């Protein structure tokens, strides 16, 4: 399974000169900054710095870009924990428990837990990738559009059922998100729900809508409060507590391992990957916990589950890129650009012929995880000072920041207007008990769900029997059904069996 000769060549490639490592540190810092600023995306950071890789050899370019990826995966958790703003779509589940911990004054611990889970997740994820890169690529090839529809529906319904006390309202939120995502030109070449506006022809800008629903709506609510953390004593920044949080994540090896496995395998599915992996891992942690009710109220296990999955989904998406040459998301699409700039084509042949380079990329990520620990322990306490900023200053500053960021995402005023509209929608959703996370995940996956459903229809010729030939899709649909109605069914069956 492991090619010893290529392994030694990879080690030689990485450690014969310190040069490759010198670009890793700025890469991680860039990723941390872009991940931590709402509105700036990891893919944007990689795209902005992609031209720099022209002056690097392929190995250095990959180290630099994966370092941005690694830093950004953790960076996204910082605003998720401190401000309830998922810096990236893969940090959605981190907000569920990270933000309540911050409001309780446990922001240092929460950030430490996120840092620990992210770093261990990267190590575990790339270890799995190192051992299983070929089988993973074979499994990914078996995932067709029918499976992708099933996975995205499962993710949306699951989070809808989890994040709202009312199952109906959770599911309505998810369906609403999916529908909104289909606004604009569809696969049939006609525009829907655009009100005749040219701005809506390309659909609703998803990331500004996500920022509006998560962040701005929460900021409206916080505007009258004095500080993010109410108690004076709880607002202090403590490196000791960050380290305590880091140790907490080490004490949860099973949650990390499960999250990492989910992250690698779900992350490898193009288009679905990291957005769903963190939610599935969170759900699994909640279901297996002895205190499921504490999830969503500041249970650090929720952060461990989410962060271990989203950092390993990076490994999964890189597996797809290396093994099949298919980018799993925007960030890996930029990496594919780096491949093209260096005249390299990913795919089975690349893995066969350039095994040493593949191993070097994987091994470099182990090193990046350790560097992230060191850099994170320096950066996190600095960023934790945000809890000391009075809300009078924090709220308008973050609102202005997301306005700039959303303009950056769309290139025109559609972004800021989308933030405004969806912040009001998000506020109404929160106030009346709908699930904002389910609506956001629906928004993120709606486009992919529709195109996958169309491909399934075209492949099957409209025959339902086609589903019977897709056991993985059936299994996922079964899991979806069980997630929604499993407990009720068991509840209905239990009295009969006890009689």
């Amino acid at each position, binding site marked *: 399974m492991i090619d010893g000769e290529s392994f030694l060549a990879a080690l030689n490639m990485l450690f014969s000169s310190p040069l490759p490592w010198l670009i890793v540190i700025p890469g991680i810092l860039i990723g941390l900054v872009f991940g931590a600023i709402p509105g700036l995306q990891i893919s944007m950071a990689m795209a902005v710095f992609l031209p720099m890789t022209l002056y690097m050899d392929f190995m250095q370019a990959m180290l630099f870009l994966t370092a941005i990826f690694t830093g950004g995966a953790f960076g996204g958790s910082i605003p998720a924990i401190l401000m309830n703003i998922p810096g990236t779509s893969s940090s959605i589940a981190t907000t569920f428990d990270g933000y309540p911990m911050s409001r309780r004054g446990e922001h240092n611990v929460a950030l430490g837990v996120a840092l620990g889970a992210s770093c261990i997740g990267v190590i575990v994820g790339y270890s799995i990738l190192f051992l299983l890169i070929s089988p993973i690529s074979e499994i990914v090839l078996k995932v067709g559009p029918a499976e992708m529809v099933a996975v995205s529906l499962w993710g949306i319904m699951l989070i809808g059922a989890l994040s709202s006390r009312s199952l109906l309202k959770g599911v309505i939120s998810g369906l609403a998100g999916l529908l909104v995502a289909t606004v604009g030109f*569809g696969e049939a070449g*006609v525009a*829907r729900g655009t009100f005749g506006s040219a701005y809506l022809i390309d659909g609703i800008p998803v990331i500004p809508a996500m920022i509006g629903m998560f962040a701005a709506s929460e900021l409206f609510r916080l505007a009258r409060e004095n500080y993010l953390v109410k108690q004076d004593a709880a607002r202090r920044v403590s490196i000791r507590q960050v380290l305590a949080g880091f140790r907490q994540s080490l004490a949860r090896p099973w949650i990390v391992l499960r999250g990492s496995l989910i992250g690698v395998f779900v992350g490898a599915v193009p288009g679905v990957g990291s957005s769903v992996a963190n939610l599935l891992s969170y759900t699994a942690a909640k279901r297996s916990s002895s205190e499921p009710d504490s*999830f969503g109220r500041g249970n650090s296990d929720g952060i461990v589950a989410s962060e271990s999955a989203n950092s390993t989904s990076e490994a999964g998406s890189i597996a797809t890129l290396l093994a099949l040459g298919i980018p799993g998301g925007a960030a890996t699409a930029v990496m594919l650009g780096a491949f093209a700039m260096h005249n390299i084509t990913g795919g089975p042949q690349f893995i066969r012929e350039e095994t040493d380079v593949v191993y070097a990329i994987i091994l470099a990520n182990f090193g990046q995880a350790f560097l992230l620990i060191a850099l994170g322990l320096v950066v996190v306490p600095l960023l934790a000072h945000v809890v000391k900023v009075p809300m009078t200053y924090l709220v*308008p500053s973050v609102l202005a920041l997301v306005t700039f960021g959303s303009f950056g995402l769309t290139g025109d005023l559609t972004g800021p207007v989308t933030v405004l509209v969806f912040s009001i929608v998000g506020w109404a959703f929160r*106030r009346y*008990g709908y699930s904002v996370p389910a609506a956001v995940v629906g928004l993120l996956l709606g486009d992919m769900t529709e195109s996958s459903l169309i491909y399934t229809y075209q492949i099957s010729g409209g025959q339902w029997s086609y589903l019977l030939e897709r056991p993985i899709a059936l299994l996922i649909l079964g899991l979806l059904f069980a997630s929604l109605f499993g407990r009720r069914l068991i509840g209905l069956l239990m009295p009969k069996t006890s009689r």
Partner: protein
Amino acid sequence: MSKLAGPTRTNTAGDLVVLAVLAACVVFYCVDAIRASRDVLNLILVLPLSVAAFALCLAQFLITLRETRVRGSATALREEPAAEEPASARQGTESFADVFRVVGLFAFYVLTLPWLGFDIGTCLFLAAFLWLHGERRWSRLLGYSIGFGFLMALFFSRMLPYPMPMLLLGAA
């Protein structure tokens, strides 16, 4: 995860309004999609989702009404005033006036960006927000608004590959 309580008497009306708006939007969107094209490829996802969403909205509407009626009769039996419900049991405890003030200011900021630009617009938004929330120290109010506003405008105008609307920095 925001754990929110079920509907209560204090905001049942709002809850029903949100449901009605959601259902109306779903119906409008579905009709618009059908009007655009009856092709299977156009409706393959939109139609079943719309039907499901509308049916669930209707079901939730009826559940909310029933819960309100049950709660109403229970309260009548207990003869307890509505105001005695614990605040923690309510879904949204923030006042409408506070939220509308912030939303209004944010909307003004976003919608006037084409004229005021990101530089002046941001400075004015920050200053107005600080003033409305009790900041009366002019040095801080102006210093922070101008400093933060221009710093952000400069940073993003240098970072982004396309021109941003600016009133002063654009002319510089």
